[in-house]
Protein backbone atom coordinates (compact mmCIF):
# COMPACT_ATOMS: atom_id res chain seq x y z
CA UNK A 1 0.00 0.00 0.00
CA UNK A 2 0.97 3.64 -0.35
CA UNK A 3 1.54 5.69 2.78
CA UNK A 4 2.13 9.43 2.41
CA UNK A 5 4.10 11.03 5.24
CA UNK A 6 5.07 14.69 5.18
CA UNK A 7 4.24 14.80 1.49
CA UNK A 8 6.52 11.91 0.65
CA UNK A 9 4.90 8.72 -0.72
CA UNK A 10 6.17 5.33 0.51
CA UNK A 11 5.16 1.98 -1.01
CA UNK A 12 5.11 -0.53 1.80
CA UNK A 13 3.80 -4.00 2.58
CA UNK A 14 1.87 -3.50 5.82
CA UNK A 15 0.06 -6.14 7.88
CA UNK A 16 -3.44 -5.29 9.12
CA UNK A 17 -2.46 -5.13 12.77
CA UNK A 18 0.60 -2.85 12.46
CA UNK A 19 0.24 0.53 14.12
CA UNK A 20 1.13 3.77 12.40
CA UNK A 21 3.68 4.64 15.06
CA UNK A 22 5.46 1.30 14.60
CA UNK A 23 5.74 1.93 10.85
CA UNK A 24 6.86 5.55 11.26
CA UNK A 25 9.56 4.70 13.76
CA UNK A 26 10.56 1.19 12.73
CA UNK A 27 10.26 1.21 8.96
CA UNK A 28 10.57 4.85 7.93
CA UNK A 29 13.13 5.89 10.53
CA UNK A 30 10.94 8.83 11.56
CA UNK A 31 11.69 8.60 15.27
CA UNK A 32 10.50 12.10 16.13
CA UNK A 33 7.11 10.64 16.99
CA UNK A 34 7.40 9.05 20.45
CA UNK A 35 5.56 6.21 22.17
CA UNK A 36 5.06 6.15 25.90
CA UNK A 37 1.80 4.49 26.95
CA UNK A 38 0.75 2.87 23.67
CA UNK A 39 -2.91 3.10 24.73
CA UNK A 40 -4.24 6.60 24.15
CA UNK A 41 -3.41 7.90 27.60
CA UNK A 42 -0.49 10.29 27.07
CA UNK A 43 -0.36 11.95 23.63
CA UNK A 44 3.38 11.41 23.02
CA UNK A 45 2.56 9.81 19.66
CA UNK A 46 0.32 12.63 18.34
CA UNK A 47 0.52 13.16 14.56
CA UNK A 48 -1.83 14.82 12.09
CA UNK A 49 -3.88 12.78 9.63
CA UNK A 50 -5.46 14.96 6.97
CA UNK A 51 -4.86 17.86 9.32
CA UNK A 52 -6.62 16.30 12.31
CA UNK A 53 -4.81 15.12 15.43
CA UNK A 54 -4.50 11.38 15.97
CA UNK A 55 -2.71 9.14 18.43
CA UNK A 56 -0.42 7.12 16.14
CA UNK A 57 -0.26 4.29 18.71
CA UNK A 58 -4.02 3.72 18.25
CA UNK A 59 -4.03 4.19 14.50
CA UNK A 60 -3.63 1.28 12.12
CA UNK A 61 -1.12 2.06 9.39
CA UNK A 62 -3.32 0.19 6.91
CA UNK A 63 -6.14 2.64 7.65
CA UNK A 64 -3.97 5.55 6.46
CA UNK A 65 -3.96 4.56 2.80
CA UNK A 66 -4.82 7.64 0.76
CA UNK A 67 -4.44 9.98 3.75
CA UNK A 68 -1.80 12.65 4.39
CA UNK A 69 0.15 11.92 7.58
CA UNK A 70 2.18 14.77 9.10
CA UNK A 71 4.79 14.26 11.79
CA UNK A 72 7.09 16.59 13.68
CA UNK A 73 9.77 16.01 11.02
CA UNK A 74 7.52 17.61 8.41
CA UNK A 75 6.59 20.69 10.44
CA UNK A 76 9.83 22.64 10.11
CA UNK A 77 13.41 22.06 9.07
CA UNK A 78 16.48 22.50 11.29
CA UNK A 79 17.37 25.76 9.51
CA UNK A 80 13.79 26.95 9.30
CA UNK A 81 11.90 26.02 12.42
CA UNK A 82 8.11 26.31 12.58
CA UNK A 83 6.74 29.10 14.78
CA UNK A 84 5.64 26.52 17.35
CA UNK A 85 9.13 25.04 17.51
CA UNK A 86 10.63 28.53 17.88
CA UNK A 87 8.15 29.41 20.62
CA UNK A 88 8.78 26.17 22.53
CA UNK A 89 12.52 27.00 22.51
CA UNK A 90 11.99 30.65 23.40
CA UNK A 91 9.78 29.75 26.37
CA UNK A 92 11.84 26.76 27.44
CA UNK A 93 8.59 24.78 27.24
CA UNK A 94 10.18 21.42 27.94
CA UNK A 95 12.46 19.65 30.31
CA UNK A 96 13.28 16.14 29.06
CA UNK A 97 11.58 16.84 25.72
CA UNK A 98 9.97 13.42 25.33
CA UNK A 99 6.42 14.77 25.14
CA UNK A 100 7.41 17.76 22.97
CA UNK A 101 6.81 16.36 19.46
CA UNK A 102 3.32 15.30 20.52
CA UNK A 103 2.67 18.62 22.26
CA UNK A 104 3.71 20.54 19.15
CA UNK A 105 1.60 18.44 16.79
CA UNK A 106 -1.42 18.82 19.07
CA UNK A 107 -0.79 22.56 19.19
CA UNK A 108 -0.53 22.67 15.39
CA UNK A 109 -3.95 21.00 15.16
CA UNK A 110 -5.38 23.43 17.71
CA UNK A 111 -4.04 26.54 15.96
CA UNK A 112 -5.26 25.33 12.58
CA UNK A 113 -8.78 25.15 14.01
CA UNK A 114 -8.55 28.09 16.43
CA UNK A 115 -5.90 30.54 15.17
CA UNK A 116 -6.37 33.00 18.06
CA UNK A 117 -7.07 30.85 21.11
CA UNK A 118 -7.63 32.20 24.60
CA UNK A 119 -5.57 30.72 27.41
CA UNK A 120 -8.56 28.59 28.43
CA UNK A 121 -8.89 27.31 24.88
CA UNK A 122 -5.21 26.37 24.85
CA UNK A 123 -5.58 24.46 28.11
CA UNK A 124 -8.67 22.66 26.83
CA UNK A 125 -7.18 22.02 23.38
CA UNK A 126 -3.92 20.67 24.81
CA UNK A 127 -5.59 18.50 27.44
CA UNK A 128 -4.83 15.29 25.50
CA UNK A 129 -1.08 15.60 25.96
CA UNK A 130 0.60 14.78 29.25
CA UNK A 131 3.96 16.16 30.29
CA UNK A 132 5.64 14.03 32.91
CA UNK A 133 8.06 16.89 33.65
CA UNK A 134 5.18 19.26 34.34
CA UNK A 135 6.18 21.96 31.85
CA UNK A 136 2.50 22.87 31.39
CA UNK A 137 2.63 26.60 32.26
CA UNK A 138 5.43 27.16 29.75
CA UNK A 139 3.73 25.01 27.12
CA UNK A 140 0.60 27.16 27.40
CA UNK A 141 2.69 30.34 27.05
CA UNK A 142 4.58 28.92 24.06
CA UNK A 143 1.37 28.00 22.24
CA UNK A 144 -0.13 31.45 22.85
CA UNK A 145 3.11 33.04 21.63
CA UNK A 146 3.23 30.83 18.55
CA UNK A 147 -0.33 31.90 17.70
CA UNK A 148 0.86 35.52 17.73
CA UNK A 149 3.96 34.71 15.69
CA UNK A 150 1.80 32.96 13.08
CA UNK A 151 -0.65 35.85 13.03
CA UNK A 152 2.19 38.35 12.55
CA UNK A 153 3.63 36.21 9.73
CA UNK A 154 0.22 36.07 8.04
CA UNK A 155 -0.17 39.84 8.35
CA UNK A 156 3.31 40.52 6.97
Amino acid at each position, binding site marked *: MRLTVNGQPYDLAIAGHESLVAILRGRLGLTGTKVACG*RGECGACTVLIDGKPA*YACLTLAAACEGAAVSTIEGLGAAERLHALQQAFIAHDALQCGFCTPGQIMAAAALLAQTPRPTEAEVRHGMSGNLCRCGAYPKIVRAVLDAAQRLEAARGA
Partner: protein
Amino acid sequence: MSPFTYHRATSTDDAAARLAGARAVPMGGGTDLLVAIDEGVVAPAQLVDLRGVPGADAVALDARGALRIGGAARVHDVARHPAVLERWPALAQACEAVGSPTLRQMGTMGGNLCQRPRCWYFRRGVSCFKNGGDECPAVDGENQYLAVIGGGPCHAVHPSDPAVALTALEATVEITSAGGTRTVPIAAFFVPPAEAPERETVVGPGEFVSAIGVPAVSAGGVQRYHKLMQREAWDFALVSIAAVRPAAGGVRMALGGVAPGPWRVNSSVEEDVASGGLDDDSISALAERALYDAQPLSKNGYKIEMAGALLRQAMRELAT
Protein backbone atom coordinates in the same frame (compact mmCIF):
# COMPACT_ATOMS: atom_id res chain seq x y z
CA MET B 1 -1.03 -7.44 19.32
CA SER B 2 -2.43 -10.68 17.89
CA PRO B 3 -2.54 -10.52 14.08
CA PHE B 4 -5.74 -9.65 12.23
CA THR B 5 -6.59 -8.43 8.78
CA TYR B 6 -7.98 -5.01 8.01
CA HIS B 7 -10.75 -4.12 5.60
CA ARG B 8 -12.04 -0.65 4.89
CA ALA B 9 -15.74 -1.09 4.09
CA THR B 10 -16.85 0.72 0.95
CA SER B 11 -20.60 0.63 1.56
CA THR B 12 -23.14 -0.42 4.18
CA ASP B 13 -23.75 -3.66 2.27
CA ASP B 14 -20.03 -4.35 2.04
CA ALA B 15 -19.65 -3.75 5.81
CA ALA B 16 -22.59 -6.06 6.57
CA ALA B 17 -21.27 -8.78 4.26
CA ARG B 18 -17.79 -8.63 5.79
CA LEU B 19 -19.13 -8.62 9.32
CA ALA B 20 -21.04 -11.82 8.58
CA GLY B 21 -17.63 -13.52 8.41
CA ALA B 22 -16.16 -15.47 11.32
CA ARG B 23 -14.56 -13.38 14.07
CA ALA B 24 -15.05 -10.16 12.13
CA VAL B 25 -15.66 -7.08 14.30
CA PRO B 26 -16.59 -3.50 13.42
CA MET B 27 -14.09 -0.71 13.98
CA GLY B 28 -14.55 3.04 14.19
CA GLY B 29 -11.65 5.09 15.50
CA GLY B 30 -10.10 2.03 17.14
CA THR B 31 -9.48 4.01 20.33
CA ASP B 32 -11.05 1.34 22.50
CA LEU B 33 -10.91 -1.67 20.19
CA LEU B 34 -7.14 -1.64 19.62
CA VAL B 35 -6.50 -1.37 23.35
CA ALA B 36 -8.97 -4.20 24.03
CA ILE B 37 -7.21 -6.38 21.45
CA ASP B 38 -3.87 -5.58 23.03
CA GLU B 39 -5.28 -6.59 26.40
CA GLY B 40 -6.57 -9.86 24.98
CA VAL B 41 -10.18 -8.93 25.79
CA VAL B 42 -11.14 -9.55 22.15
CA ALA B 43 -9.29 -11.58 19.50
CA PRO B 44 -10.77 -10.76 16.09
CA ALA B 45 -9.60 -12.27 12.81
CA GLN B 46 -10.75 -9.28 10.78
CA LEU B 47 -11.47 -5.64 11.51
CA VAL B 48 -14.07 -3.96 9.34
CA ASP B 49 -13.43 -0.21 9.34
CA LEU B 50 -16.74 1.64 9.02
CA ARG B 51 -15.28 5.12 8.53
CA GLY B 52 -15.03 4.86 4.75
CA VAL B 53 -18.71 4.03 4.23
CA PRO B 54 -20.17 6.99 2.31
CA GLY B 55 -22.36 9.10 4.61
CA ALA B 56 -21.56 7.04 7.72
CA ASP B 57 -19.83 10.01 9.33
CA ALA B 58 -22.65 12.49 8.65
CA VAL B 59 -24.56 14.50 11.26
CA ALA B 60 -27.74 15.83 9.70
CA LEU B 61 -31.26 17.10 10.40
CA ASP B 62 -34.23 15.53 8.67
CA ALA B 63 -37.28 17.40 7.40
CA ARG B 64 -39.11 16.96 10.74
CA GLY B 65 -36.24 18.41 12.74
CA ALA B 66 -34.94 15.12 14.13
CA LEU B 67 -31.20 14.51 14.26
CA ARG B 68 -29.53 11.61 12.49
CA ILE B 69 -25.98 10.80 13.54
CA GLY B 70 -24.10 8.30 11.36
CA GLY B 71 -22.52 5.39 13.23
CA ALA B 72 -19.06 6.55 12.16
CA ALA B 73 -19.66 10.26 12.91
CA ARG B 74 -16.81 11.57 15.02
CA VAL B 75 -17.54 12.55 18.62
CA HIS B 76 -15.90 15.93 17.91
CA ASP B 77 -18.18 16.62 14.95
CA VAL B 78 -21.27 16.00 17.09
CA ALA B 79 -19.89 18.18 19.91
CA ARG B 80 -19.33 21.13 17.56
CA HIS B 81 -22.29 20.74 15.19
CA PRO B 82 -24.25 24.04 15.17
CA ALA B 83 -27.67 22.36 15.30
CA VAL B 84 -26.57 20.06 18.14
CA LEU B 85 -25.21 23.02 20.10
CA GLU B 86 -28.49 24.85 19.60
CA ARG B 87 -31.12 22.12 19.97
CA TRP B 88 -29.41 19.30 21.88
CA PRO B 89 -26.83 21.07 24.06
CA ALA B 90 -26.81 18.19 26.59
CA LEU B 91 -25.51 15.94 23.83
CA ALA B 92 -22.96 18.52 22.67
CA GLN B 93 -21.71 18.91 26.24
CA ALA B 94 -21.52 15.14 26.79
CA CYS B 95 -19.55 14.70 23.56
CA GLU B 96 -17.23 17.55 24.51
CA ALA B 97 -16.63 15.77 27.84
CA VAL B 98 -15.28 12.60 26.16
CA GLY B 99 -11.60 11.82 26.75
CA SER B 100 -9.28 14.32 25.09
CA PRO B 101 -9.53 16.55 21.98
CA THR B 102 -7.58 13.96 19.98
CA LEU B 103 -9.76 11.07 21.16
CA ARG B 104 -12.85 13.05 20.16
CA GLN B 105 -11.43 13.59 16.67
CA MET B 106 -10.66 9.87 16.36
CA GLY B 107 -13.59 8.25 18.16
CA THR B 108 -16.90 7.52 16.46
CA MET B 109 -20.37 7.60 18.02
CA GLY B 110 -21.06 3.93 17.20
CA GLY B 111 -17.76 2.92 18.80
CA ASN B 112 -18.53 5.13 21.77
CA LEU B 113 -21.82 3.32 22.50
CA CYS B 114 -20.20 -0.09 21.94
CA GLN B 115 -16.96 0.49 23.86
CA ARG B 116 -16.26 -2.13 26.51
CA PRO B 117 -16.37 -1.37 30.24
CA ARG B 118 -13.20 -0.27 31.97
CA CYS B 119 -13.46 -2.55 35.03
CA TRP B 120 -9.81 -3.38 35.62
CA TYR B 121 -10.41 -7.05 36.46
CA PHE B 122 -12.11 -7.56 33.09
CA ARG B 123 -9.50 -5.48 31.24
CA ARG B 124 -6.62 -7.34 32.82
CA GLY B 125 -7.90 -10.81 32.06
CA VAL B 126 -8.97 -11.82 35.59
CA SER B 127 -11.75 -14.40 35.36
CA CYS B 128 -15.12 -12.65 35.70
CA PHE B 129 -18.68 -12.74 34.34
CA LYS B 130 -17.65 -10.78 31.26
CA ASN B 131 -15.09 -13.32 30.09
CA GLY B 132 -16.93 -16.52 30.89
CA GLY B 133 -16.12 -16.78 34.59
CA ASP B 134 -18.71 -17.28 37.31
CA GLU B 135 -17.89 -14.66 39.90
CA CYS B 136 -17.24 -10.93 40.14
CA PRO B 137 -13.81 -10.44 41.74
CA ALA B 138 -14.63 -6.78 42.39
CA VAL B 139 -17.29 -7.58 44.99
CA ASP B 140 -14.62 -8.45 47.54
CA GLY B 141 -11.95 -6.41 45.76
CA GLU B 142 -11.28 -3.01 44.27
CA ASN B 143 -14.76 -1.80 43.43
CA GLN B 144 -14.43 1.96 43.91
CA TYR B 145 -15.34 2.79 40.30
CA LEU B 146 -18.13 0.26 39.87
CA ALA B 147 -21.91 0.39 39.99
CA VAL B 148 -24.05 1.38 42.97
CA ILE B 149 -27.39 0.68 41.33
CA GLY B 150 -28.72 -1.95 38.92
CA GLY B 151 -25.56 -4.06 39.14
CA GLY B 152 -25.10 -7.78 39.65
CA PRO B 153 -23.89 -10.30 38.95
CA CYS B 154 -21.40 -8.04 37.10
CA HIS B 155 -20.94 -4.58 38.59
CA ALA B 156 -18.97 -2.83 35.82
CA VAL B 157 -20.26 0.57 34.67
CA HIS B 158 -20.54 1.64 31.06
CA PRO B 159 -17.98 4.36 30.31
CA SER B 160 -19.84 6.36 27.64
CA ASP B 161 -20.68 10.02 28.28
CA PRO B 162 -22.79 10.52 25.12
CA ALA B 163 -24.97 7.51 26.02
CA VAL B 164 -26.14 9.31 29.17
CA ALA B 165 -27.26 12.38 27.21
CA LEU B 166 -28.82 10.19 24.51
CA THR B 167 -30.81 8.41 27.23
CA ALA B 168 -32.23 11.66 28.57
CA LEU B 169 -32.99 12.73 24.98
CA GLU B 170 -34.76 9.39 24.31
CA ALA B 171 -32.66 8.61 21.26
CA THR B 172 -32.99 5.52 19.08
CA VAL B 173 -30.21 3.31 17.76
CA GLU B 174 -30.29 1.87 14.25
CA ILE B 175 -28.60 -1.53 14.01
CA THR B 176 -27.69 -3.08 10.67
CA SER B 177 -26.53 -6.52 9.56
CA ALA B 178 -26.60 -8.62 6.41
CA GLY B 179 -30.15 -9.52 7.46
CA GLY B 180 -31.42 -5.94 7.41
CA THR B 181 -31.91 -3.03 9.77
CA ARG B 182 -33.72 -2.70 13.11
CA THR B 183 -34.21 0.32 15.33
CA VAL B 184 -34.28 0.10 19.12
CA PRO B 185 -34.96 2.80 21.72
CA ILE B 186 -31.81 3.57 23.68
CA ALA B 187 -33.55 2.35 26.85
CA ALA B 188 -33.54 -1.13 25.27
CA PHE B 189 -30.06 -0.84 23.73
CA PHE B 190 -28.09 -1.57 26.90
CA VAL B 191 -28.58 -5.07 28.32
CA PRO B 192 -28.81 -5.41 32.13
CA PRO B 193 -26.10 -7.74 33.49
CA ALA B 194 -28.72 -9.90 35.15
CA GLU B 195 -29.82 -10.82 31.63
CA ALA B 196 -26.44 -11.25 29.91
CA PRO B 197 -23.40 -10.20 31.96
CA GLU B 198 -20.95 -11.02 29.15
CA ARG B 199 -22.14 -8.20 26.94
CA GLU B 200 -23.40 -4.65 27.38
CA THR B 201 -25.61 -4.00 24.36
CA VAL B 202 -28.11 -5.79 22.12
CA VAL B 203 -25.67 -5.53 19.18
CA GLY B 204 -25.01 -9.15 18.21
CA PRO B 205 -22.37 -10.81 16.06
CA GLY B 206 -22.51 -9.53 12.48
CA GLU B 207 -24.37 -6.38 13.51
CA PHE B 208 -23.23 -2.79 13.75
CA VAL B 209 -24.64 0.57 14.77
CA SER B 210 -25.37 2.34 11.50
CA ALA B 211 -27.00 5.46 12.97
CA ILE B 212 -28.35 7.16 16.08
CA GLY B 213 -31.59 9.11 15.92
CA VAL B 214 -32.44 11.95 18.29
CA PRO B 215 -36.07 13.17 18.32
CA ALA B 216 -36.75 16.80 17.46
CA VAL B 217 -36.98 19.24 20.35
CA SER B 218 -38.56 22.66 20.37
CA ALA B 219 -36.21 25.61 20.75
CA GLY B 220 -35.69 26.86 24.29
CA GLY B 221 -35.95 24.74 27.40
CA VAL B 222 -33.01 23.69 29.57
CA GLN B 223 -30.46 20.95 28.93
CA ARG B 224 -27.37 20.14 30.95
CA TYR B 225 -24.62 17.53 31.13
CA HIS B 226 -22.34 17.48 34.17
CA LYS B 227 -19.46 15.09 34.73
CA LEU B 228 -17.51 14.53 37.92
CA MET B 229 -13.98 13.17 37.44
CA GLN B 230 -10.90 12.57 39.52
CA ARG B 231 -9.07 15.20 37.50
CA GLU B 232 -10.38 18.04 35.37
CA ALA B 233 -9.90 16.46 31.96
CA TRP B 234 -9.27 13.26 30.01
CA ASP B 235 -10.86 10.89 32.46
CA PHE B 236 -13.92 8.69 32.67
CA ALA B 237 -16.86 9.89 34.73
CA LEU B 238 -17.06 8.93 38.38
CA VAL B 239 -20.66 10.08 38.16
CA SER B 240 -22.39 12.18 35.51
CA ILE B 241 -25.88 13.48 34.82
CA ALA B 242 -27.85 14.56 31.78
CA ALA B 243 -30.95 16.64 32.51
CA VAL B 244 -33.44 17.84 29.94
CA ARG B 245 -36.49 20.04 30.24
CA PRO B 246 -37.94 20.83 26.81
CA ALA B 247 -39.87 24.08 26.46
CA ALA B 248 -42.94 21.99 25.67
CA GLY B 249 -42.80 20.45 29.17
CA GLY B 250 -41.71 17.29 30.93
CA VAL B 251 -38.40 16.46 32.62
CA ARG B 252 -35.95 13.69 31.79
CA MET B 253 -32.83 12.85 33.73
CA ALA B 254 -30.22 10.12 33.40
CA LEU B 255 -27.16 9.27 35.48
CA GLY B 256 -23.84 7.92 34.22
CA GLY B 257 -21.12 6.10 36.12
CA VAL B 258 -23.51 4.63 38.69
CA ALA B 259 -25.01 1.64 36.87
CA PRO B 260 -24.09 -0.96 34.21
CA GLY B 261 -25.67 1.35 31.60
CA PRO B 262 -27.04 4.89 31.59
CA TRP B 263 -29.52 5.05 34.50
CA ARG B 264 -32.77 6.79 33.66
CA VAL B 265 -34.31 8.40 36.72
CA ASN B 266 -37.63 6.94 37.82
CA SER B 267 -40.52 8.53 35.92
CA SER B 268 -42.48 9.41 39.07
CA VAL B 269 -39.51 11.50 40.24
CA GLU B 270 -39.24 13.14 36.82
CA GLU B 271 -42.95 13.98 36.93
CA ASP B 272 -42.64 15.55 40.35
CA VAL B 273 -39.70 17.66 39.15
CA ALA B 274 -41.73 18.71 36.13
CA SER B 275 -44.69 19.79 38.23
CA GLY B 276 -42.49 22.49 39.75
CA GLY B 277 -42.77 24.51 42.95
CA LEU B 278 -39.71 22.82 44.45
CA ASP B 279 -37.76 24.08 47.44
CA ASP B 280 -34.53 22.78 48.99
CA ASP B 281 -36.36 20.19 51.10
CA SER B 282 -38.42 18.75 48.27
CA ILE B 283 -35.37 18.74 45.98
CA SER B 284 -33.42 16.73 48.56
CA ALA B 285 -36.32 14.36 49.04
CA LEU B 286 -36.64 13.82 45.29
CA ALA B 287 -32.90 13.15 44.93
CA GLU B 288 -33.17 10.57 47.68
CA ARG B 289 -36.16 8.95 46.00
CA ALA B 290 -34.26 8.79 42.69
CA LEU B 291 -31.49 6.81 44.43
CA TYR B 292 -33.78 4.71 46.64
CA ASP B 293 -32.56 1.43 45.13
CA ALA B 294 -28.86 2.33 45.27
CA GLN B 295 -26.72 -0.10 47.23
CA PRO B 296 -23.01 0.55 47.45
CA LEU B 297 -20.28 -2.07 47.31
CA SER B 298 -17.56 -1.84 49.95
CA LYS B 299 -15.66 1.09 48.41
CA ASN B 300 -18.03 3.11 46.23
CA GLY B 301 -20.55 4.65 48.62
CA TYR B 302 -19.21 8.08 47.67
CA LYS B 303 -20.89 7.68 44.27
CA ILE B 304 -24.33 7.80 45.90
CA GLU B 305 -23.44 11.12 47.52
CA MET B 306 -22.08 12.45 44.23
CA ALA B 307 -25.17 11.32 42.35
CA GLY B 308 -27.36 13.01 44.96
CA ALA B 309 -25.41 16.25 44.60
CA LEU B 310 -25.69 16.17 40.81
CA LEU B 311 -29.40 15.42 40.97
CA ARG B 312 -30.02 18.36 43.32
CA GLN B 313 -27.95 20.68 41.13
CA ALA B 314 -29.76 19.55 37.97
CA MET B 315 -33.20 20.00 39.56
CA ARG B 316 -32.30 23.57 40.51
CA GLU B 317 -31.04 24.27 36.99
CA LEU B 318 -34.16 22.82 35.40
CA ALA B 319 -36.31 25.00 37.65
CA THR B 320 -34.72 28.25 36.48
